[in-house]
């Protein structure tokens, strides 16, 4: 899609190309530098950090900061490292992802194929709600969760993730199901299939791609969440992001920059793996999810 050039062969080294690749390389450096610095810092000992510069590669590679970040770094009274936060995040992310997608896919299906009177009205509220800042709804949700007795627990937080994931996921599924050929649906109706049968036997098998997009969106979004983790859970259930922030920004004690950077990488690892594994689908997922909230 560059400019049409007729049959003239392109020269590899030209002023234009040097500018083009030069700019791209400079930009790539800006994006890569923080990752590089994180890795390098996490492999150094504290004396080396105090003396050297942050861009220098480690003279003596040590994995001790990683071990410490994972197993013994302290937040408040707890000194069991990020491992606790990691497992909390797993226990939050897995059920949240499954429940929110299960509910939203059925919602989207109902909206696309079985519209009832008023359905679009509720859906509009849902979509407009996605743009309301979380801060406006947080306190009422605290009250609701407290009343049903799950405030401060993992289940409470899981419910919150399902609620706030619903608008965008429902939209995603509704649009996808609406784009499938109507004839399929009609044929199944004529054959006597009902609401759930059509969903399970026809819609689900055809919608693997959109499920993958939704899973990527939810895993990265929920894993990276901070605000809900702080508001809706107690310290023993804090997700990894909250625990990481507490470890790094704790006021007391000597700052161990190498441990901090190892901890930071560990926290970023899960979404990064999802990103590298899922490739192009990731872009679709996040492009949809960026609208969330």
């Amino acid at each position, binding site marked *: 899609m560059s400019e049409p050039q007729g049959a003239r062969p392109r020269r590899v080294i030209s002023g234009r190309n040097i500018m083009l690749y030069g700019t791209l390389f400079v930009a790539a450096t800006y994006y890569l530098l923080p990752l590089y610095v994180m890795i390098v810092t996490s492999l150094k000992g504290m004396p080396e950090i105090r003396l050297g*510069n942050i861009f220098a590669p480690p003279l003596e590679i040590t994995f001790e900061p990683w071990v410490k970040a994972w197993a013994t770094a302290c937040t408040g009274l707890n000194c069991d490292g990020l491992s606790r936060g990691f497992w909390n995040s797993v226990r939050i992310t897995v059920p949240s992802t499954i429940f929110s997608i299960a*509910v939203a896919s059925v919602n989207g299906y109902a909206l696309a194929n079985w519209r009832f009177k008023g359905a679009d009205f509720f859906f509009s509220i849902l979509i407009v709600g996605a*743009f309301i800042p979380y801060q406006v709804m947080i306190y009422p949700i605290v009250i609701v969760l407290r009343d049903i007795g799950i405030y401060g627990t993992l289940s409470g937080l899981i419910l919150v993730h399902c609620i706030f994931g619903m608008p965008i996921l429902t*939209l995603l599924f509704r649009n996808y199901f609406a784009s499938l050929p109507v004839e399929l649906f009609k044929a199944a109706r004529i054959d006597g299939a009902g609401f759930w049968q059509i969903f399970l036997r026809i819609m689900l098998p055809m919608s693997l791609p959109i499920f993958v997009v939704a899973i990527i969106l939810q895993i990265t979004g929920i894993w990276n969440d901070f605000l809900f983790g702080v508001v809706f859970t107690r310290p023993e259930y804090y997700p990894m992001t909250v625990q990481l922030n507490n470890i790094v920004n704790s006021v007391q004690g000597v700052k161990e920059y190498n441990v901090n950077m190892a901890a930071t990488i560990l926290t970023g690892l899960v979404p990064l793996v999802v990103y590298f594994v899922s490739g192009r689908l990731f872009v679709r997922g996040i492009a949809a999810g960026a609208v969330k909230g």
Partner: protein
Amino acid sequence: MTGHAKAGRPNQVLRNLNSKIASIPMILTAVVIFFGGTIWTVVYSFTNSKLLPRLSFVGLDQYYRLWAAPRWVVSIENLAVYGIFSLIFSLVIGFVLAALMDQKIRFENTFRTIFLYPFALSFIVTGLVWQWLLNPEFGIQSVVRSLGWTSFTFDPLYTPSIVIYGVLIAALWQGTGLVMCLMLAGLRGIDEDIWKAARVDGIPMWKTYLFIVIPMMRPVFITTLVIIASGIVKVYDLVVAQTSGGPGIASEVPAKYVYDYMFQAQNLGQGFAASTMMLVTVAIVIIPWAYLEFGGGRNRV
């Protein structure tokens, strides 16, 4: 698709019953949480709730107090500066990168992967990395000084007047990759013939971009604007991780003000008033766009 159930069933409520049952979670979320919760917060923002919410109305008192609080005013100023600059820079950087990527370059996938990976990371991770890079004792400032330029000063996170730009640098690092991807998709959607026609007419490339391509990409720009704008209003984690609102109150933002008053200072009325102000901002800026973009047509996103 909606007509199939219309044929002469007597009971309106039972019609499409499965669909209605399946929609209960959505209806509850929409009505109780989104609608009810918002109204609740707005109503209680007119009360003098402190530790617990209670319905003793004091009119606009909380709002007067809010706008008289230096911390809130600083938050709003920060949000304005952060918002304007991040809109401009995200769009410009994102578009330029996308235009460069669109030149049939080699290693396109590698470059795209590099530009986008920060977006996979949370704001907490982003904030902590940039806190480290901008640390004056060890970070960029100290490295440049050790190269011999001893008077070099670059410590935005420790200088109240420019701290918000330090936050901005990190935010752009995290978010421009996504903007680039959206813009690139938009550019790829433009017909090759447009380029050929412009070429034939002898229109320089930059003019083609500015006067033909960008106007054609209007829907992409609107989508991107909505995404960036809704991100701006809720900026919270990044500030918490990078500066904790400091030095002093220099990098406070509205979302943090709300959280601190609701859950730390136990001054609920202030928290509700501040969050209602956030709601008003969003309503004015985003909802009309959002409706046009996402509510109107199907098959978007």
